[in-house]
């Protein structure tokens, strides 16, 4: 084991996770590009390490959301049917898809994230749509409420268009397994557009689901031997430390400055991944 490389892995994971945590993103979206472009690691090894850190961040961040009663546990487990099925398909595809296509897909996801970061998210307006007795949400009793501190009372909300939400979640699970990311990028539209959840509820529920989704693919990658302890260990540890730090810094830095920095980094990494897809690495030996 190279001590210098281990410390580098630990340090960049702290940075990536702190940065991601500040804007409610999983660190995976930074870790895979950094490990492949700057660390010259095989993309499958990078994905294996990243998926473990995604689980670590999800589990580490879940408790405060649960205690604040923001997580919709019932909805989460229903949607997890779709995300884990997607992950299963992602694992199967990962062995077939050529490496250059993985880099291309990653670049696309990075750009999509950048665009999403620029667009403002708002709470869906009609959270109190009429009850449809035949709907999934009614049958499975998915509708719930969350305590709003600003209002000082519980706010009730309805879960809408569950089948469409499930379809989008399947895609999110697939991309998560394929690229080793939490794929919040794809979960956010599912939560906002299809299910029409309040933002606080969707952030908490999405974070809660990411762990199980990632476990489905991480289990496969571990059994397959893609999760290298010397790489995945420091990355997971650094991500947990970074997530704790990120939550602390979040309260002191202006959100607008952070958003700008974030978009710049995402675009930069997207360009690197695109170059990598065509076999060009400006930072030395190609992975």
């Amino acid at each position, binding site marked *: *084991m190279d*001590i210098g490389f*281990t410390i580098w892995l630990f340090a960049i994971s702290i940075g990536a996770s702190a940065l991601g945590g500040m804007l409610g993103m999983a660190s995976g979206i930074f870790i895979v590009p950094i490990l492949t472009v700057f660390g010259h690691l*095989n993309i*499958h*090894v990078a994905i294996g390490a990243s998926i*473990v850190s995604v*689980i*670590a961040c*999800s*589990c*580490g961040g*879940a*408790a405060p959301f*649960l*205690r604040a*009663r923001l*997580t919709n*546990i*019932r909805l989460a*487990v*229903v949607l*997890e*049917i779709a995300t*884990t*099925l997607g*992950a*299963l398909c992602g*694992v*199967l595809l990962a*062995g077939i898809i050529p490496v250059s296509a993985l880099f291309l897909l990653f670049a696309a996801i990075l750009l999509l994230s950048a665009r999403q970061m620029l667009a403002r998210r708002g709470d869906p307006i009609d959270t109190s749509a009429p009850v449809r007795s035949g709907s999934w949400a009614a049958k*499975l009793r998915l509708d719930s409420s969350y*305590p709003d*501190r600003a209002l*000082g*009372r*519980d706010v009730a909300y309805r879960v809408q268009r569950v089948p469409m939400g499930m379809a989008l979640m399947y895609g999110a699970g697939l991309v998560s397994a394929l690229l080793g990311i939490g794929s919040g990028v794809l979960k956010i539209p599912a939560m906002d557009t299809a299910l029409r959840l309040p933002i606080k509820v969707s952030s908490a529920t999405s974070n809660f689901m990411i*762990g*199980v989704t990632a*476990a*489905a693919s*991480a*289990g*496969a*990658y*571990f*059994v*397959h*031997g*893609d*999760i*290298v*302890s*010397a790489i*995945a*260990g*420091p990355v*997971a*540890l650094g991500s*947990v430390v970074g997530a704790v730090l990120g939550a602390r810094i979040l309260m002191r830095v202006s959100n607008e400055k952070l958003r700008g920095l974030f978009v710049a980094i995402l675009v930069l990494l997207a360009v690197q991944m695109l170059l990598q897809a065509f076999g060009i690495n400006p930072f030395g030996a190609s992975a």
Partner: protein
Amino acid sequence: MKRAISTPTSTPTSPLAPLERLLASLLHYGTWVASLIIAVGFVLTLIHTNSGVSHPETMLGMRIVTTGIVLFILLPVLRLMLMFGVFLRERDYRFSAIAALVLLIVAAGCVTGAYLAPSMAG
């Protein structure tokens, strides 16, 4: 240090459901235990790594790191099992079946890993 301006002194809302509290504790402590195991493994590896290549102690340290990683992967699985158990005790058979189905899919993922073409990591 700046103090929080608005301290929520009381929560007028309904008390926390036991399932939420259980899940929060499992994930919170699970994360710290897994992180600690990985850290211990690395300290052991670092101590013994100077003396030579593939020392038995170095291998032991790495094996401890692997244990921590496995615990991280198992944490969401344990979370599903806990949900399955609680739903079952509440006689919510539909949701215990859903939790069981998710567990089954995760298990299928692990089995799939064993049968994938062994080309990827090298």
